[in-house]
């Protein structure tokens, strides 16, 4: 296996942040100690600061979605580890609007706790704070544990729609309510054909027999509940689309994300997207908004996820509203 191009004697997450901030210095500022990325510009009418974050290894999520029209700040943890509450707390204080701060949180224990602690601290300071929990991954729906569905790529849809709603001046309650509606209307599923390379050991995180794929992987390199014999791509995409649609309300339009898990080529992702669009069309659903690329990977894992959001009437307008971030421009 090929070790990552990382200098293990350095803090490579911090150095990546410094590189990112230099590359996108027209869009973001990097705050140091604690580390967070902050938008240089925000809409004048915005009354609520939007903050998200989570483990590193999922770039461009979240720092790539900081900027006018989307997040006001993003807080990165170490690889696959929740950010520290102090990062979240200080980022939130820095970008709080007159109507407070909204936290967009992926459903993982560590993120829930650390965002929760930061929220307690903000409340202690008198800053209004609310939370939108994103839990889109259908593969974790039937698990026995109380932890619920994992949060994955639908977070980007939530961030985009809430960003646009915040720009039009929505207050904290409306944003929290809209966010939870968007999360409820969004589901994802992911497959992988090769595990990610651990930055610590340089080895693949798990083995996978020739001809099999993991069906229902998450974005932390964990195995899925099932390994299945690899179907031809059209059959696989059709199965995934059917499964995702089955967990969603009916609708005739969809916002579609096809997300590469890391080592997946653009040719592969656009083949998947074309097949998703076909599968949706076959069920009377048209693609009203889309995003295709390596958006929320698990380092260099080979695989992809499909996310579908069934939008309410005015969400397409929010999806198409202006945004100026490193990873998404509208």
């Amino acid at each position: 296996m090929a070790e990552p191009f990382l200098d293990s004697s350095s803090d490579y997450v911090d150095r990546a942040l410094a590189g990112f901030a230099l590359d996108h210095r027209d869009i973001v500022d990097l705050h140091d100690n604690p580390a967070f990325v902050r938008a240089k510009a925000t809409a004048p009418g915005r009354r609520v600061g939007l903050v998200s974050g989570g483990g590193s290894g999922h770039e461009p999520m979240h720092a790539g979605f900081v900027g006018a029209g989307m997040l006001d700040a993003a807080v990165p943890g170490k690889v696959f580890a929740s950010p520290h509450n102090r990062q979240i707390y200080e980022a939130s204080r820095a970008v709080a609007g007159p109507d407070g701060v909204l936290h967009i949180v992926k459903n993982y224990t560590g993120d829930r706790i650390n965002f929760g602690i930061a929220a307690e601290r903000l409340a202690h300071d008198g800053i209004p704070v609310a939370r939108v929990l994103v839990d889109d991954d259908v593969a974790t729906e039937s698990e026995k544990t109380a932890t619920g569905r994992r949060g994955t790529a639908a977070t980007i849809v939530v961030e985009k729609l809430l960003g646009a709603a915040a720009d039009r001046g929505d207050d904290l309650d409306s944003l929290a309510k809209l966010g939870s509606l968007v999360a409820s209307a969004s589901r994802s599923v992911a497959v992988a054909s090769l595990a990610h390379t651990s930055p610590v050991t340089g080895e693949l995180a798990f083995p996978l027999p020739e001809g099999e794929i993991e069906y229902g992987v998450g974005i932390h390199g964990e195995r899925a509940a099932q390994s299945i014999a690899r179907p031809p791509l059209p059959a696989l995409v059709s199965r995934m689309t059917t499964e995702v649609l089955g967990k969603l309300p009916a609708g005739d339009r969809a916002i579609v994300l096809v997300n590469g898990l890391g080592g997946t080529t653009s040719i592969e992702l656009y083949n998947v997207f074309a097949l998703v669009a076909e599968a949706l069309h076959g069920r009377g659903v048209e693609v009203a908004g889309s995003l295709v690329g390596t958006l929320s990977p698990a380092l260099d894992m080979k695989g992809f996820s499909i996310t579908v959001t069934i939008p309410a009437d005015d969400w397409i307008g929010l999806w198409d509203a202006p945004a100026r971030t490193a990873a998404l421009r509208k």
Partner: protein
Amino acid sequence: MLMSTYLEAAETAHAALTRIDQAAGDGDFGDNLRGGLRGVVAALPADAGLTTEFTVAGTYFLDEVGGTSGPLIGLLLQNVAVSLGRDGETDAALVAGLEAGTAAIQRVGEAVVGDRTMVDTLAPTLDDLRTSGDPVDWAAIAGRALEHARATASLSPRMGRASYVGDRALGVPDAGAMGIALLFWALASRSSSLAFPSELASPSEPASSSEPASSSELEA
């Protein structure tokens, strides 16, 4: 000072707490608690009153201490500080602060009694405190807190890292629960001279966990 006493307890118990967290977690709880309290004591002025002690300790644990326990304990301490600051340094304010802090820990950590966490010390000890009268008999309360903490040895973990080992945790108490029992021990030590919980007083010091204490390492 209260925090110095708590630190002494954490120093004495460091080896045992590490061992306990190793049995059902990743072994860094001893480091997190001792490291946090060392930082707090170093930051505190010599003449700090109780409110200042809790204020500085709360912020320090929230800002600087790693693991799941660090900031959760920080929330507890910060809520006590708020209560003391608002209502004066009375037993009633202390108890009200502990109540608010426990509520915050439960809001954030979503653990209920029986999940095998620090809540299994806090919640029943608060029940004890509610029926203990004013002034509080802190020595009795500290004894009860230790019993509640010890009782976690028969619980199988459902929250946090320990949930991964399941029933293999049985027989050893929860590290965070024991760490909170030491806070009550320190509160009681202000007025009476109390025996140190024997199972936590280990003579030889194991190697520290090698994980950095300041990063939060829960999957995210």
